């Protein structure tokens, strides 16, 4: 028995050592080649070629490419990269392999159209992608939403957006807000309420983490913009009444009968500068805000999802 015992012990020891070493080495190798998968994936960047190469396992390959797409985006986003060149091909391949992979279209709407560093900056390709999706999934109202979304947010083509939302609202089972959005586009496209509705809709209807975080950041920005506008208007009114600027926020609050010291969504009070401007305490925490920014403020060139869901 002793010889066998010895062999068992040695073999078991080797098993454990090699297992540990393999895992350790693998993690190390991963760090040496972070983008390898994506580079490999796009040695074949033509969707048709990929489809042919899948030997009929399109669905599986679509899932694999979808996983890679999300990884790609997340990885670059986390590393503060400023471009997403491969995002469009990846999404195109994914949807060619499986035109019914709806989350891919939503991802494209959120991240293909916006300009860097928040997205790939390819609104035209985003439109193409949405239209491809609609062609293959005519009964999915969400795709109309995504298309309208792109027209609204990036292209600011409110007329087209209204048309699309309207069309989408007629799809059986469409969410009621489609009709509302269609109506809003016509008259109140630039309103905060419309924007809020849109971004809330995105937040509610998506399950994908990146999309939801993006939507949440936009909603926060809208709140800020709204607050700052209102506060700025209050300052103006004060000025018209008293002929001077308010000395402090408290004075403004008292004079205009505001409820308490106004604060931003993070709880920091808005500042009133001597020049009468309303400003955020920490503008860098609100990447999409357009108001309340100090003069000459350059938003960080790096995209950042500040709030963790």
């Amino acid at each position: 028995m002793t010889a066998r015992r010895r062999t068992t012990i040695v073999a078991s020891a080797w098993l454990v050592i090699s297992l540990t070493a393999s895992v350790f080495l693998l993690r190390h190798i991963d760090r040496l080649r972070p983008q390898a998968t994506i580079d490999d994936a796009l040695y074949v960047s033509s969707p048709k070629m990929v489809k042919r190469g899948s030997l009929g396992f399109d669905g599986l390959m679509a899932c694999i490419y979808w996983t890679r797409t999300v990884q790609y985006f997340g990885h670059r986003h986390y590393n503060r990269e400023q471009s997403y060149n491969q995002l469009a091909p990846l999404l195109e391949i994914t949807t060619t392999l499986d035109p019914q992979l709806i989350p891919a279209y939503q991802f494209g709407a959120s991240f293909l159209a916006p300009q860097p560093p928040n997205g790939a900056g390819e609104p035209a390709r985003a439109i193409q992608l949405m239209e491809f999706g609609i062609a293959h999934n005519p009964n999915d109202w969400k795709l109309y939403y995504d298309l309208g979304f792109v027209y609204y947010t990036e292209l600011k083509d409110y007329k087209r957006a209204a048309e699309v939302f309207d069309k989408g609202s007629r799809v059986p089972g469409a969410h009621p807000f489609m009709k509302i959005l269609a109506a809003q586009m016509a008259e109140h496209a630039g309103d905060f309420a419309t924007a809020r509705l849109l971004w809330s809709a995105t937040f509610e209807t998506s399950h994908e983490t990146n999309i939801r975080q993006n939507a949440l950041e936009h909603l926060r920005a809208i709140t800020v913009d709204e607050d700052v506008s209102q506060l700025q208007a209050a300052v103006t009114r004060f000025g018209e009444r008293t002929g001077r600027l308010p000395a402090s926020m408290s004075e403004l609050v008292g004079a205009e009968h505001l409820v308490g010291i106004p604060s931003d969504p993070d709880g920091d009070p808005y500042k009133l500068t001597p020049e009468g401007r309303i400003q955020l305490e920490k503008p860098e925490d609100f990447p999409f805000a357009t108001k309340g920014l100090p003069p000459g403020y350059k938003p960080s060139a790096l995209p950042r999802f500040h709030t963790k869901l």
Partner: protein
Amino acid sequence: MSMNTRIINIASNTFREAVRDRVLYNLIAFALLLTGAAIFVGQISIDIERLVVVNLGLTAVSLFGVIIAIFIGIGLVSKEIEKRTLYTVLSRPVRRWEFIVGKFFGLAGTLVVNTFFMAIGVFGALLYVAHKFTRPDALILVALYFIILEFLIICSLALLFSSFSSPLLSAVFAFSLFVIGSFADDLRGFAGLTHGFMRWVATGAAYLVPNFSTLNVISAVAHQHSLGGQLILQNTLYALFYTAMALSGAVLIFERRNLK
């Protein structure tokens, strides 16, 4: 006579068995045919003949090597038990673990020799389409080296399964692991997207599965991208450790097996 001699003896015998197995030659012939076909395919798509030859040729070497490894490897232990040749071997002063290790080296040796011949085919085809060799072509040797590392892993896995399961099942397991292992990177990506218990399972599986995606540098080499020395070293170590792991498993199982 020492243990090493016995291991070498078993290894050479395994090698001899493989070489005399006619199936091997059919597979090699087929692979060479495929390399030849690459030349014709390359003629059709001008400008990328070289790319096609390298891609298709190396893929053929890799794929057929895996098939050969599995084909022969699965029978390594189970065939011997079935045919009772094992009994006369183990009635001699041969340790069970020496048997496993010897079989492994015999199989690995077969594949290395096999790869050598198929590589000549690939280089031949390359010379034919490109009319000369350039320096970046040396990268093909690196790709072949990585393919051999893949073979080591596959051999050890085939042996592992052969030590306890029937030839058919072993083939199924080994081939499945090869396919899954080729998508190991994606498996880890997938694991990253899941939460909770699934995440543990997926991550565990992702690390346990042989990582053939890191060892597959065919595309990179075809596009003449060089590979860092660190990467080569670490991949070598990974392959060696993984092989050791599978072999240890095979030894542990085989030591305990009642050979009815």
